[in-house]
């Protein structure tokens, strides 16, 4: 929600193109040769003539978590951070929406239900107590895990952790609460029809992943799956999903190991594993990669066309993770990257263009996207494809390569500043079976890569002949231009991915 008129140069937080990264001590950026300066308008002190020499970048000292395991199998990781008297706890239970099965949206719905009443408190009492303690509690699910995060001042953390224990071990899932939240979700799905970005994202999933694949339907479900949600279904899902053997609790903040162990034991010590064996990491058949095709979704009178272009990507465990990350940083993973540079900074077609690989245990999608002025929809698509082809056919310049390598390896210095960042990073690495010790290795890999490696990654993982294009816009004004590009067959879909027959 917009709560003030603040207007930014670029969307913040929209480009999460770097996941786990770390840093280097060397990597002094190679300054680019400056063109001759124009005639100065005022006396310029000599000191301004050239950019300052920066000297070596600081070393990042990675946090060193202390690890312990509770008797019931919960892994506990502690990072002491004593700058501010707050504690951040993140409990991550492997599983998540990729295990939804037939009922799309189930995991995220259950995740959202956890704090709608637990233990002796209903939803109001629970919220009142959390806020009274100056704490914040978030519950939810992603594709691969259910996550409960708690933040509290040091002085109230033990009372707040008891509430975390309640939501994990004793959620109520009362019928009236489930029905209310279900109806709210139905309203929210209804509203998402008006949001071109949400429609594009949903249709992208429907078209890129086949019906049996866990990523086919929206993570938040659709109207047909949501109406089926009831208290028994929710309870059954949680009884299987809430497995301490699959859980990691990260605590970062102003506590000692002894305090952390006591907090974890008191909140989660009585958690018992479900009788069923833990579910595996989940698997799915490799999604097909059909030849490039275009799907249009009509939004009459739209001022912009929202476009997403992509395909199933690769898993986080790919040996080419570093090369792909570097390639994408140059293509569309930073402000200076080619896609934003051309579509925004040279052409003025958009407020921002970007690309990303979603790193998950199963291959998440590669997506390149932008919202562009309606009358340049076809020109913008053409530029995306020109750039896909160019990064495959020509080596990137030495300047681009050096800049992207430094950007990835050095921006990591700021990624372990807050307790929230540290806890989030540790929980995320855990999901991929990685530790902080892997980060310097990946950074070494990045530093060792050359232009040929970038080109090879593009040739192998970015194939313009096998992409899916989704455009949500004013079809009557964009269709002819898009068809004339001859990128592939053009089909009209509705907001749920069903073919629209004229």
């Amino acid at each position, binding site marked *: 929600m917009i709560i003030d008129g603040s207007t930014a140069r670029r969307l913040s937080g929209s480009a999460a193109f770097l996941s786990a990264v770390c840093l280097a001590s060397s990597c002094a950026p190679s300054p680019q040769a400056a063109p001759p300066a124009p005639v100065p308008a005022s006396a310029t002190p000599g000191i301004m003539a050239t950019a300052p020499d920066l000297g070596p970048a600081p070393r990042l000292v990675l946090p060193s978590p202390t690890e312990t395991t509770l008797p019931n199998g919960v892994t506990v990781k502690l990072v002491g951070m004593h700058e501010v008297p707050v504690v951040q706890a993140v409990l991550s239970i492997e599983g998540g929406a990729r295990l939804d099965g037939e009922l799309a949206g189930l995991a995220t719905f259950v995740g959202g239900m956890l704090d709608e009443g637990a233990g002796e408190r209903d939803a109001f009492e629970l919220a009142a107590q959390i806020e009274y303690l100056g704490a914040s509690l978030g519950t939810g699910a992603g594709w691969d895990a259910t996550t409960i995060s708690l933040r509290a001042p040091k002085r109230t953390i033990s009372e707040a952790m008891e509430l975390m224990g309640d939501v994990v071990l004793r959620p109520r899932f009362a019928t009236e609460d489930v029905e209310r939240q279900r109806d709210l979700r139905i309203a929210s799905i209804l509203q998402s029809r008006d949001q071109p970005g949400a429609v594009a994202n949903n249709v992208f999933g429907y078209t890129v992943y086949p019906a049996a694949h866990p990523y086919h339907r929206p993570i938040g479900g659709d109207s047909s799956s949501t109406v089926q949600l009831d208290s028994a279904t929710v309870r059954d899902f949680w009884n299987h999903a809430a497995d301490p053997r699959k859980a990691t609790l990260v605590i970062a903040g102003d506590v000692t190991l002894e305090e952390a162990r006591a907090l974890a034991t008191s909140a989660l010590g009585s958690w018992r594993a479900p009788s069923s064996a833990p579910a595996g990491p989940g698997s799915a058949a490799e999604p097909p990669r059909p030849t490039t095709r275009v799907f249009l979704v009509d939004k009459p009178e739209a001022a912009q066309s929202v476009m997403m272009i992509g395909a199933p990507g690769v898993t986080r465990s790919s040996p080419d993770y570093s090369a792909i990350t570097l390639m994408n940083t140059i293509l569309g993973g930073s402000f200076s990257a080619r896609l934003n540079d051309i579509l925004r900074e040279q052409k003025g*077609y958009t407020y921002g263009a970007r690309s990303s690989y979603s790193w998950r245990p199963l291959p998440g999608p590669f997506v390149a996207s932008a919202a562009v002025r309606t009358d340049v929809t076809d020109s913008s698509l053409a530029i995306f494809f020109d750039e896909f082809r160019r990064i495959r056919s020509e080596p990137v310049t030495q300047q681009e390569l050096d800049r992207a390598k430094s950007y990835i390896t050095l921006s990591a210095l700021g990624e372990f500043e807050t307790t929230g960042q540290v806890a989030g990073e540790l929980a995320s690495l855990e999901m991929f079976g990685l530790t902080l010790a892997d980060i310097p290795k990946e950074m070494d890999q990045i530093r060792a890569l050359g232009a040929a490696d970038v080109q090879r990654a593009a040739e192998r993982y970015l194939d313009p002949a096998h992409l899916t294009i989704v455009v949500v816009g004013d079809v009557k004004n964009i269709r002819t231009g898009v068809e004339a590009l001859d990128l592939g067959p053009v089909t009209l879909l509705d907001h749920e991915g069903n073919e629209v027959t004229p």
Partner: protein
Amino acid sequence: MPNSRPLIAALVAVGALCPVRGLDAQAAALHVPVVIDTLDNGLVLMVHEDSSAPIVNVNVWYHVGSGDEKPGRTGFAHLFEHLMFMGSEHAPYPEFDRRLEAAGANNNGSTTEDRTNYYEEGPANALPLMLWLEADRMGWMLPTMDSAKVDLQRDVVKNERRQSYENQPYGMVWDHLPRMLYDASHPYSWPVIGSMADLSAASLEDVKQFFREYYAPNNAAIVVAGNVKAADVKALAERYFGAIPRGPAISRPTPEATPLRGDTLLVLEDRVQLPRLYYAWHTVRGWAPDDAALDLAAYVLTGAKNSRLTKEMVYEDQTASSVSAFQDGKRLAGEFMVIATARPGTTLPTLQQTIDAEIARLAADGPTARELEQAQNAFEAGFLDGLESVGRKADRLNAYYYQLGVPDAFQRDIDRYRAVSADDVRRVVRTYLTGPRAVISVVPQGQASMAARERMTP
């Protein structure tokens, strides 16, 4: 169950901070130490040393926003913010972004009605580069400005407007609401992003004039926060900014907002599935005596699940899918808003009934002690959250300096929320939220019958 007590009783040491005991030995003061200097050209420099992470944040505020614009020239402050990234004499376009990325640093800028800010954040060794780039665009940007740059960023800004307003469900509310609250001559009567027509009309000469008027060192303040030494920062700042001449004295308009004479109602038909109601009242400026009480009133109405309107409308009656309220105290004036989206099958008069009744009840009886304390604790916890990040601290310090003339006002800010009584909340609700208001109904196309109604005269 805890009794009434400050959450931050244990001393908060932030960054490389020294504890400072407050008058009350029990509750210690929150202190974020700052070394503040003013260069000869008027540029204010504030440094906060924090060695907890190997990074630095440079945060620059220019004291100009859309509130300084003239009718027919709307959107200039924000358009200008975009142009600040288009190169300067010694760092021609596109060096600004490229050099920072090569140093591992991020950057952005933003514009509000009252100020424009810019920041860079990255490894601490990049500090000289950040200051050099900021100095170059403060002192040596004008000679490089040309109409091609203006044309290009004009197009980018128009796309930003399309993305946030025209192509966003309910987005056009933020274009209409300012006009309903303020006279056409008041600079809060247009949105920060400006109108498409005025953006089209912006000329190179307009842009240059704007720069000469507002982008002078004596109208700017810089906070540097992070793993740095204050003396080093001052030396660097003098080296790079020292030769930039002081600009003319700046006079900023301080027009008064004309009170609404009665309720005004507007119905917008939009491509939306569910109708949404917007109420807005004039209130007070930021940091005015009633500002904190209005923030707490908003929390009592919608700040948590058990807040009054959320509980009644979203949970019990289930007439709304969401409801939110907030006080927005700005430099020249303030507004209080309540926004509620109907559930399928509900129309806006139903939402009005509940909201009006709850506001009347709060105006008559005030919040309970428990409600007030929950609200105060939640606000206080919010202060702690901002203290871990040098970027958030830097922006907060610049905000306090701008609003109060003192950067380290964290404790003063906490104290003003703690000082609010239940009777204060009752009084501000009665004073500000029972008078004339602007009402916008956004309804699905052809569904004007769902819109809000005028209120019954008492």
